[in-house]
């Protein structure tokens, strides 16, 4: 990559979202805005080596893209009053005067995450346009060919055009649902990085960091929305364990066995601060906040024994009320076992087993096996752990479970 390409990429990374947002607001068309911005980038690649990088590079790119918009309309003789207004605006300002508007960036986020798009398309568009990542970078992060990412972005833009999605934030009646959709996209990007079982670990860290960056941008745009701060808190707190959660060869290390000195203290502090901010808005805790609070209990405990398990049980109870989910229930069982012992926990797990909602997952038999082992029911425990190993999603998990089964005597 040439030096100028890297410089342009860096500018785009910082300003791209706001440039596209400004253009989309002016033209009312996100797809057109993105195309215009890319043409301006192409111009920059040709002109900046000669002229030098402009003092306000974002303003330069925006002005060039606006001019291209006007030229395009002129050519097609489709200038109307609105376009005249843009032309006038362009003529009356200098390049240095560009003031990106936060509301436009917010419109961009909501449009990129519009429900008319598939999740996959929302993820690609959000990272590409809001996050300012290149298609090559995205392809590398998602382990797919560049052409696949390009197709996803092109298709997504076409879908938005065909559905005539307006470049606007949602109506108050749709607000919370649409905001939940945006947060789901960000968290999906995070978990893609955090929980993926395949791929290079550093790449996965990058994806999680990307999601955090998007989350912080959203928190800046929507400071009064507790769920946004709560999601940032959850991601910071979970990411703080990144360094300790796998061995060098990729073998997962269970929470209890992690070297807590390798947890990122600064990140834990940021997570706690974000959770405090969410709480300070006084609108109660929702699912992300409760999960963040659980993560905070672990993150701030010196050891497994010193963890406030009682508090964790209560948080899981609240989470289960809010969003009933068998995995949450299973986690509650583990927490209960730490407070009142394995027998009580086993009651919860056996009820889950009867309901059958976790059938086919290794999670239930592995927890059940652990509990039985602690109760001294060794034969049953071994059989459960072997069952769990047979259901495990990857070789490393399977090996870990088989090793546990073998260690029982």
């Amino acid at each position, binding site marked *: 990559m040439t030096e100028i390409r*890297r*410089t342009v990429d860096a500018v785009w990374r910082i300003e791209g979202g706001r440039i596209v947002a400004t253009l989309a607001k002016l033209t009312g068309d996100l797809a057109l805005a993105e195309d215009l911005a890319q043409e301006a980038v192409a111009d920059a690649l040709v002109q900046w080596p000669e002229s030098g990088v402009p003092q306000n590079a974002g303003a330069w790119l925006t002005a060039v893209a606006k001019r291209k918009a006007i030229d395009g309309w002129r050519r097609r003789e489709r200038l109307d009053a609105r376009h005249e207004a843009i032309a006038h605006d362009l003529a009356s300002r200098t390049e240095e005067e560009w003031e990106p508007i936060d509301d436009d960036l917010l419109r961009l986020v909501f449009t990129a995450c519009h429900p008319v798009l598939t999740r996959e398309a929302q993820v690609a568009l959000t990272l590409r346009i809001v996050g300012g990542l290149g298609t090559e970078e995205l392809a590398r992060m998602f382990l797919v060919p560049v052409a696949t990412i390009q197709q996803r972005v092109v298709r997504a833009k076409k879908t938005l055009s065909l559905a005539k999605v307006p470049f606007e934030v949602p109506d108050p009646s749709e607000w919370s649902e649409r905001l939940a959709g945006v947060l789901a996209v960000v968290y999906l990007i995070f978990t893609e990085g955090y929980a993926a079982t395949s791929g290079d670990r550093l790449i996965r860290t990058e994806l999680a960091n990307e999601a*955090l*960056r998007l989350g912080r941008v959203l928190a800046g745009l929507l400071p009064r929305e507790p769920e946004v701060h709560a999601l940032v808190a959850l991601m910071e707190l979970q990411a703080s364990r*990144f360094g300790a959660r796998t*061995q060098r060869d990729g073998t997962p290390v269970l929470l209890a066995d992690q070297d807590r000195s390798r947890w990122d203290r600064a990140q834990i502090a940021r997570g706690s601060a974000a959770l405090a901010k969410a709480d300070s808005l006084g609108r109660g805790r929702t699912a992300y906040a409760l999960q963040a609070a659980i993560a905070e209990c672990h993150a701030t405990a010196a050891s497994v024994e010193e963890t406030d398990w009682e508090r964790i049980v209560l948080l899981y109870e609240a989470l289960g009320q809010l969003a009933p989910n068998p995995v949450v229930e299973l986690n509650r069982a583990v927490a209960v076992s730490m407070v009142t012992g394995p027998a009580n926990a086993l009651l919860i797990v056996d009820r889950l087993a009867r309901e059958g909602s976790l059938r086919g997952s290794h999670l239930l038999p592995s927890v059940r096996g652990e509990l039985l082992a602690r109760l001294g029911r060794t034969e049953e425990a071994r059989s459960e752990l072997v069952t769990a190993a047979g259901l495990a999603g990857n070789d490393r998990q399977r090996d870990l479970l088989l090793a546990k089964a073998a260690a029982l005597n």
Partner: protein
Amino acid sequence: MKYMLIMRGSAEAVAAYEKLDFEEVINAMGAYNESMIKAGVLLAGEGLTDAAQGFVVDFSAEKPIITDGPYGEINELFNGFWIIEASSKEEAAEWASRAPLTPGNKLEVRRVTDESDFADYADNEFIQKEKGWRAEEAKKA
């Protein structure tokens, strides 16, 4: 990747600040910080008090020696820092170039070490742990 932007100014540059309208300085810094917060890249940042009020702990002797006053050369004072998340050296450079600093000031930019820089160390630690564990097992047997 994390980068640290280290503010270094000469004594003259620091003195020159005292002639500026302090409110303006605060506003410019505030706007710069806000732009990085809004972009989701600012992780930490602090300004430091006058170097003359600091002290230096020197490890040259057997017992560390504490001396009052600024560290080293007066033209390379360390006055504050930011830690930012950036995806490339170029992005870090772009953010650094936007700092509202006056002539005489410099920013030193350094990448913060991460896990990848300690790959060998992590390996060693793991081997050490495993060695310990094997020794325990051997004792039991």
